[in-house]
């Protein structure tokens, strides 16, 4: 260091007579515990939720499509006015009730 020669003599050993505290046992463990869980750079953790989400999403989409296929025509059919009232009547009178005289 450029200013090495300017440093006064004697400080090194004077300070050596002043003991420094030592780290306590298990200090590194406590630091790691204080730092929390593992840092979040784990691809596997990112992948698994995505898979589950796609599976669940697929099921929901299929259910929605199936419901649409089943219930929309029914709803449309119910709302449609009858095109031929006679056909209704004919339905009502077309039953073969058999003859009175068997």
């Amino acid at each position, binding site marked *: 260091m450029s200013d090495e020669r300017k440093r006064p003599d004697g400080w*090194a*050993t004077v300070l050596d007579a*002043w003991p*420094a505290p030592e*780290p306590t046992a298990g200090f590194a463990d406590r630091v790691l515990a204080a730092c929390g869980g*593992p840092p979040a750079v784990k691809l596997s953790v990112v992948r698994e939720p995505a898979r589950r989400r796609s599976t669940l999403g697929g099921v929901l989409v299929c259910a929605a499509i199936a419901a649409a296929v089943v219930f929309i025509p029914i709803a449309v059919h119910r709302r449609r006015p009858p095109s031929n009232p006679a056909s209704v009547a004919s339905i009502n009178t077309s039953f073969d009730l058999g003859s009175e005289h068997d």
Partner: protein
Amino acid sequence: MARQSGTSAGGVRLLVVGRAFETARVADDRADLDDVTLARARQGDRQAFRVLVERYQRPVFALLGRMLLRAGRESIVEDLAQETFVRVFRSLPTFGADGRHNISAWILTIAARLAIDELRREPRRAESLDGASFGIAAETGADELSERRRIGIAIERAVGELAPEYRAAFLLREVHDMDYESIAEALRVDIGTVKSRLSRARAALRRALQGTYDER
């Protein structure tokens, strides 16, 4: 007993005061964390981060302990050390984006700022010194023990009289060997202010320690 400049050994200077003291520079290991481990830690590898913590926990404890002067504040030292590394963990992915390259200086910067904030938060109180905390090797004699302890107590008292910013500048420079630029960034001042604070801190410590050496 006269002070003599000693010889350097492995980059650490030895000062002979009567007899040679075994150096106990526990604060700094010169080698920084290797690039591979650092890269893994930046990517979130917790085992690599554990290695980082174990590498730098000693200088962090040393800085915080000397900033807060330990007595009665052991739990605070641990709390702030933990907070230091939690902040390191959170910011590590972006370390280097602003041009920083010295991980050691960066970690000590976080620790120093936390210590200064803590000292500003708490009113200054009389520090009680625990002589038993001055760890001395068993093989040293009674004279060396008392001499070393006396110096240690004297330097601790003298540093305790410094304002937090001066204390931080002095410790970062003299104990942790940070350069002026890194200290300026840590303390959010310019380099001229760092030099001024260091000069004043050293002068104050010399005055405070003068009596310790004059007694011999």
